[in-house]
């Protein structure tokens, strides 16, 4: 048997690096199509309605339970936009070549995380103090929280600060990853974009030392972002959900929340890639390989969603204390039972069913369908959790004696201003990302250039494959 390689040269129809530079950094790169302009105006109008919704909510404040949809919307934004940069981090650390065209879309989501941090500030004025029942229970008695002896407004101060830190780290990572592309726009762009790029590129000439430091900074900011994402999900989910419900004690819930963030971040990136390919004219640079790889990760996180939900649920199910039963009733079988059914269907059953089929997973159109289902399901999940939590105002005496939610709150239906908020705030985040793409290429130019240098289309017997070298 012959021991020589079965690999022979294949036809290379990929765009050259000069073509890629002209497309992503050259003149006319960022000219917005009329369709994109219209879409951005729609997003701006929705965002304006969202702001109106917040103002009306403040003017006509009917109590804590009316802020549940606002909290749920912010939780969803953290879930989706906060998780997306992990797509720029994890595969890069693992030296996955396929992830290069997807990294930029994921990293730009940090802009929306920064908007989320700003939007969290108004909500903090409506989050009850830790001693909200002190008039009945006495000054020293607090609701259960992670802030044992801290000032009574500790969560109000720390939560926006922690979320802002996540946004700053994410923006720093996105900026560092974009420096070589700014250098390319400086060299080949025109007008205001070239002026901005000249300042942002900061004298990047592509010396080996500059590349080395760039890689180190990406690594450091990426590691910090991962740590901060876990931390933010922990504090946010505990302070804005768990601690508001008497009797809800759940150590798994923050990880369930974080896993949802990975799942939604993947979905957002898949849809971003699909949209860039469909309308952004980048089909030669991104497509099947990215969808297939991200789709496999989406299937894995979808299965993990069930694992974490079930791990959490079964503790309450077997616990069977009055507090455990109340928690299950509030979040699963009680006033939000139909919502829970929708969550289970859209966050788990439907995307799982879609993605188990090889032909669907191994296609350009399959993963986006699953991504839409997942995002809808996780949005419903955040509504289920946060609306229920903010409506679970306990009876004071009941809390004083049992710490159990005995009287189940009714289903809190959204009014028109809640709908404004739910549609407008994510639209504001998305608008921020699209505005950033007017300057920053939606596909990382230097990464696809590097990919072209370390890969080679070849023939393997009668099929075509991509030979990948991983020197660094």
């Amino acid at each position, binding site marked *: 048997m012959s021991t020589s390689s079965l690999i022979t040269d294949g036809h290379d129809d990929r765009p050259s*690096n000069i073509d890629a530079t002209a497309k992503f950094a050259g003149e006319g790169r960022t000219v917005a199509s009329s369709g994109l302009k219209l879409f951005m105006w729609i997003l701006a109008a929705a965002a304006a309605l969202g702001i109106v919704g917040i103002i009306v909510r403040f003017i006509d404040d009917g109590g804590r339970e009316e802020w549940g949809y606002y909290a749920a919307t912010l939780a969803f934004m953290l879930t989706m936009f906060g998780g997306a940069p992990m797509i720029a981090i994890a595969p890069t650390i693992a030296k996955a070549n396929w992830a290069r065209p997807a990294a930029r879309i994921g990293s730009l989501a940090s802009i929306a995380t920064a908007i989320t941090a700003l939007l969290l500030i108004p909500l903090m004025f409506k989050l009850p103090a830790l001693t909200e029942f002190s008039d009945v229970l006495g000054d020293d008695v607090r609701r259960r929280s992670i802030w044992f002896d801290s000032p009574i407004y500790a969560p109000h101060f720390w939560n926006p600060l922690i979320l802002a830190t996540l946004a700053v780290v994410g923006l720093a990572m996105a900026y560092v990853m974009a420096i070589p592309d700014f250098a390319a726009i400086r060299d080949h762009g025109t007008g205001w974009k070239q002026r901005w790029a000249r300042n942002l590129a900061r004298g990047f000439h592509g010396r080996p030392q500059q590349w080395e430091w760039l890689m180190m900074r990406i690594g450091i900011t990426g590691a910090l972002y991962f740590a901060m994402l876990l931390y933010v999900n922990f504090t946010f989910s505990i302070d804005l959900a768990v601690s508001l419900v008497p009797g809800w004690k759940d150590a798994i819930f923050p990880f369930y929340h974080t896993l949802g963030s990975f799942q939604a971040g993947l979905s957002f990136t898949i849809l971003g890639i699909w949209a860039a390919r469909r309308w952004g004219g980048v089909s030669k640079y991104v497509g099947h390989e990215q969808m297939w790889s991200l789709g496999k990760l989406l299937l894995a996180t979808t299965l993990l969603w069930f694992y974490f939900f079930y791990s959490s649920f079964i503790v309450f199910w077997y616990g069977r204390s009055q507090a455990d039963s109340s928690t299950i009733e509030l979040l699963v079988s009680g006033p939000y039972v139909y919502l829970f059914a929708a969550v289970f269907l859209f966050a788990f059953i439907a995307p799982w069913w879609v993605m188990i089929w090889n032909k669907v997973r191994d296609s350009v159109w399959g993963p986006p369908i699953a991504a839409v289902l997942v995002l809808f399901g996780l949005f419903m999940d955040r509504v289920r959790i946060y609306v229920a939590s903010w409506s679970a105002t306990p009876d004071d005496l009941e809390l004083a004696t049992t710490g159990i939610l005995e009287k189940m709150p009714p289903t809190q239906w959204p009014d028109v201003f809640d709908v404004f908020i739910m549609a407008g705030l994510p639209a504001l985040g998305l608008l921020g990302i699209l505005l950033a793409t007017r300057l920053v290429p939606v596909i990382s130019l230097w990464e696809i250039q590097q990919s072209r240098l370390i890969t080679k289309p070849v023939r393997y017997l009668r099929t075509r494959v991509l030979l990948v070298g991983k020197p660094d």
Partner: protein
Amino acid sequence: MAASNSVLGLYDNPDAGANAMDGLQSAGFALGTFDVLTGTPYPEGAFGEHVPQHRLFRFPFFGALVGLTLAILFTAGTQLAYPVVTGGKPILAVFAMLIIAYELTMLGAVVATVVGIIFESRLPNLNLGAYDARITEGYIGVVVECEGDRVEDAREVLQTAGALEIKTA
């Protein structure tokens, strides 16, 4: 004396760029006075370039040591200052101290790494020398920093290696 001239050779072929780097070394230009400019990262040493040495790896070790020391001082000092027997355990309970020691050790390592990156980056080099915009299109630039009397030598070496264009700044 500081180098006063910057000479750039531009190549459309990485092999030619690597040959230029070899040629400069053979012509007696000191390591560190010539460098390669690329629009995308190449593997370390691909052009036979001078690989700058850094000491970043020392920073996390130093930070971790400082953090561990502080943790031991903090936990031991607190327990000795307020000696309360808890659960029949010794005043200096190692397993309880380990948690704080771990946290502060990691914190020290992380903070020192960030400081190390800033320190090792040094001040930005405002004199960036000769450059060509085609480098971000995939062309290879080889830049030499040299005295005025060696500019012609540098140009000759770069030209011999097949430079498409030579610039001086």
